[in-house]
């Protein structure tokens, strides 16, 4: 157990060290007025041909509508190409295992899933060719994360610029995020992962005879590079269905710790980037502190539920004590080498971010443990969320918090010296209502549509949790699977695809509109009556607003699912 506390301490220390380092570097990448970022000449030499080839003028800037339409155009073209690639993979090269083209509904679901940074895998092992993995899925691992970062940067510019018509250039932000942030991070992480035993080759599956005389199929493939961006870009779609429980993806404790850090590093670093670009680091630390408390709190809660064990297993005669030869706790759905604590750290981090990689079966978590992962996603992936999407999600809540504070004291709310008025609050309301409408409506419809209901593995509250989890992860672009639900059906492939699209692109539109609106406003100097947002008091208010909004929206369905299961099942 001491080793597990040490692991958590090392993770926290690594995050505290890398947040300012990485965040400060990213701030220079996105705001050249802060100074030249490291490697500027090297990366500029890579970027210039890309701009020339694509006809991009890196010095031009875009109004929010043009920025958003660029995002939509890029998304439409790339999702159609991925859809075609998956359908035609049987006729394309780098397919040593001779996989056939993916069926239409699954291609739609998978293409949308990777476009939206969800990376939900309705397909199983033995479906994707190496070309599909590398040029299709891994490519989207980079660009989908970069698109999220671009929107966050545009949002920061909207908050911090004064009387400006433009928010930057989407294409430049997209390219720079890939070349200067994601690729270097993924390259370095892939080297470390390979050194620890994560495979990276172009082999087809090989059949070998084991020591016991049985035959076994050993898969090959370019894993390490994909694993690095899978975690670093909060994608989560594993090369194998078992994801980070597979020893080829996550062979030991070092890789496990590295993968959790990769999930969290960029989203936390974005808070520092925000503070630096706002020229007020306190603002960044307030957002960081709120995210950090939420992440750590939920991690400890989930770990405690799993480490305590399951009364069901105890009644069946299982020994769940922590002794020298076993970690103890609820071991259902967990590898012995990972155990309930390793699952708690990874499971909570993967659902707090928009990552979605798993190292244990979330369907086998204790009811309240499973509920914890669900609530993590219901927060809207803001603790710390995805690449960029976590930051703008939390800043939307910050606007709501200053609005509520303004109502309490009878002043027009302000944030970073910008007046928050009716148009912005309407857009904030749309952003906050969208998930509630889509998650609850589609989950509700799935309870009454017979084919959807039949896809559950379990009846009763656990079955409801399986359905609600699927739509919650889909809208919040998480991609983790509760398991149990047979998601590769016409209903779930189509509805989850739509929910992912709305959750990603539909939610980004009001965010960019708010940025466009705020960017045009003049800066109001702070006075004695201004509500200070760079203080612990504001962090507390922000935390409270998130809890109240999410609690009011989802409490009934969480009560009917995990809470009823806990009470009725005598856990």
């Amino acid at each position, binding site marked *: 157990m001491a080793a597990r506390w040490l692991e958590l301490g090392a993770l926290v220390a690594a995050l505290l060290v890398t947040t300012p380092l990485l965040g400060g570097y990213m701030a220079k990448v996105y705001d050249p007025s802060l100074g030249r970022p490291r490697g500027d000449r090297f990366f500029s030499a890579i970027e210039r041909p890309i701009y020339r080839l694509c006809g991009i003028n890196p010095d031009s800037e875009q*109004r*929010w*509508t043009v920025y*958003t*339409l660029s995002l*939509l155009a890029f*998304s*439409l073209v790339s*999702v*159609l190409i991925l*859809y075609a690639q998956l*359908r035609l993979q049987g006729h394309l090269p780098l397919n040593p295992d001779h996989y056939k083209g993916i*069926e*239409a*509904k699954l*291609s*739609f679901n998978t293409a*949308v899933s990777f476009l939206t940074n969800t990376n939900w895998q309705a397909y199983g092992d033995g479906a994707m060719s190496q070309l599909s993995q590398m040029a299709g899925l891994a490519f989207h691992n980079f660009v989908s994360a970069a698109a999220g970062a671009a929107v966050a940067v545009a949002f920061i510019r909207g908050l911090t610029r*004064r*009387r400006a*018509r433009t928010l930057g250039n989407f294409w430049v932000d997209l390219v720079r995020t890939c070349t200067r942030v994601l690729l270097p991070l993924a390259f370095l992480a892939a080297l470390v992962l390979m050194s620890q035993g994560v495979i990276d080759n172009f082999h087809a599956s090989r059949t070998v005879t084991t020591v016991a005389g049985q035959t076994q199929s050993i898969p090959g493939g370019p894993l390490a590079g994909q694993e690095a961006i899978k975690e670093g870009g909060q994608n989560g779609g594993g090369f194998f269905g078992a994801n980070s429980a597979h020893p080829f993806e996550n062979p030991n404790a070092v890789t496990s710790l590295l993968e959790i850090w990769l999930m969290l590093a960029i989203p936390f670093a974005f808070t520092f980037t925000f503070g630096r670009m706002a020229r007020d680091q306190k603002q960044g630390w307030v957002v960081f502190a709120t995210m950090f408390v939420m992440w750590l709190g939920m991690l400890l809660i989930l770990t405690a539920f799993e480490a305590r064990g399951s009364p069901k297993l105890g009644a069946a005669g299982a020994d769940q004590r922590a002794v020298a030869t076993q970690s103890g706790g609820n071991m259902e759905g967990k590898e012995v080498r990972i155990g309930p604590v390793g699952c708690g750290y990874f499971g909570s981090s993967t659902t707090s971010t928009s990552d979605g990689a798993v190292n244990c079966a979330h369907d086998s978590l204790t009811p309240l443990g499973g509920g914890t992962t669900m609530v993590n996603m219901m927060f809207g992936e803001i603790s710390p969320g995805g690449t960029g999407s976590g930051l703008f999600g939390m800043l939307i809540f910050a606007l709501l918090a200053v609005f509520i504070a303004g109502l309490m004291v009878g002043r027009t709310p302000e944030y970073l010296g910008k007046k928050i008025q009716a*148009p*912005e609050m*309407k*857009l904030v309301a749309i952003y906050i209502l969208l998930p509630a409408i889509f998650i609850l409506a589609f989950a509700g419809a799935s309870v009454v549509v017979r084919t959807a209901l039949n896809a559950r593995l379990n009846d009763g509250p656990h079955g409801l949790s399986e359905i609600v989890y699927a739509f919650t992860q889909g809208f919040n672009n998480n991609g983790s699977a509760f398991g149990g639900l047979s998601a590769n059906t016409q209903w779930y492939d*189509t509805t989850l*695809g*739509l929910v992912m*699209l709305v959750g990603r*692109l*539909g939610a980004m*539109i*009001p965010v960019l*509109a708010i940025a*466009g*609106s705020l960017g*045009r*406003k*003049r*800066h109001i100097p702070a006075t004695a009556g201004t509500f200070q947002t760079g203080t612990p008091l504001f962090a507390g208010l922000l935390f409270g607003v998130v809890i109240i909004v999410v609690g009011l929206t989802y409490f009934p369905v969480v009560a009917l699912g995990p809470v009823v299961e806990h009470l009725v099942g005598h856990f």
Partner: protein
Amino acid sequence: MADVVFVAVLLAFFALAVLFVAACDRLIGPDEEAFADRAPGTAERERRAA
């Protein structure tokens, strides 16, 4: 046939997204309205002050 349906669904979604962009732009109002109260040279002065 299924390919046509799914491609049509994608195109329809993106068409709706473009309409949503237009609706949001209408909600926040035109740039001219937001900048109507500016004196000549204000932008340059503000940029220098920032």
